[in-house]
């Protein structure tokens, strides 16, 4: 008798992480809000503190349909084009 592996590994889509910035100073920020109850206040507070301490600027905001859904394609394109650093948060 054999042991049959019932599992699957995620398919490799060749995705790699973007290079990490050495410092947040002066970067363009993107905010991804997932609609959770406190997500927006947390993100805005983070953005405000980063702006005050590191002179970052929020250049793009997007709101997902729900926490269950992916960021839509147009928003991904805008984040790539307009932002150096993207913050996505979950808050309840």
């Amino acid at each position: 008798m054999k042991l049959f592996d019932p599992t699957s590994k995620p398919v490799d889509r060749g995705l790699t992480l973007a290079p990490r910035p050495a410092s947040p100073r002066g970067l363009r920020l993107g905010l991804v809000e997932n609609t959770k109850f406190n997500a927006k206040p947390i993100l805005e507070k983070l953005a405000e503190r980063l702006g005050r301490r590191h002179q970052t600027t929020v250049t793009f905001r997007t709101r997902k349909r729900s926490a269950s859904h992916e960021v839509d394609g147009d928003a991904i394109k805008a984040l790539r084009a307009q932002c150096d650093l993207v913050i996505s948060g979950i808050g309840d």
Partner: protein
Amino acid sequence: MSGIDEATDPAALIEAYYDAGWTDGLPVVPPSDASIAAMLAVAGLEGHEELGVIAGRNAVVLAEKAAINAVMAGCRPEYMPVVVAAVKSLCAPAFAYHGPASSTGGSAMALVVNGPAAKRLGINSGNNAFGQGHRPNATIGRAVRLIMMNVMNTRPGLLDRATLGNPGKYSFCFAEHEEDHPWEPLHVSRGLRPEDSAVTLIASNSLYQVYNHLAAEPEPLLYCFADALANVGTSNLLGFNETLIVFAGEHQEVLQKAGWSRLDVQRFLIEHTRRPVADYKRGARLPGEIAPGDETTLRYRFERPEDILIAFAGGRAGSWSACLPGWGTKWTRAVTTRIEIPGGTS
């Protein structure tokens, strides 16, 4: 086939599946080349075929892996088309798998089977429809959960973050009782033909039973359901809900004798699940102090009649029915998928 090791002792083989972390906590049926092939054959599938993709997880469900898990769950080969339809429902964009599968809410994946296949396979729709004792009910639902764990990477403590979970997470599958149905069956109400067989998937928090032994008219009976569906501790209040209500025998008779339609029931429940904003603020389910007008401002729980799914199952005796509360229409939607069987028989 992806056989990776050999053993000769069945008990040792079962232990090997435990050791590998591939079970749901219950012993599994060790698959063989023949049993996997039989699963695929009945569904008319090749092992390499894709049944679906879970977006965001890069998880592709191959037929072979689904078949292995179905064997492990104890399915007979003829159940495989039902499992395949359930997997397709899980992968449907409208279901939005990630939230209901991963959330702290710990939903069960409730499967309602309709049409000729339900009867042919002996899927229980009668006494103890949600309970133990019927192989297809127990193993089809179990196969779906094993596929979620093993193929869709939804493991407890990792991408399954259920705070408590619920027993329906082991398996939750039943058939609708279509004989003596007062209306069209569930799958027909969702756009399929009566001669189709189908699986309706809904992510359900723990079901709660609703009891009423005295109501002889629909209004008092449904008032009990409305109260259950609008409880202050209900899940999400930020949007509208979806729910599955399962009426059993004596309650079905009350609706039937009164001549109420599906839409009559849905409309009644939409109106009677409205609840004052003040109630939700008292329970800190909505933020802020109670303001003038909150006692009389009513908050809706359901937006559209079709968001209240209704099925009939269970014994003919007893005054019990059940609500299977859904997850909110913003996050996920119930999905009905036709069961495809080679040769065109559904």
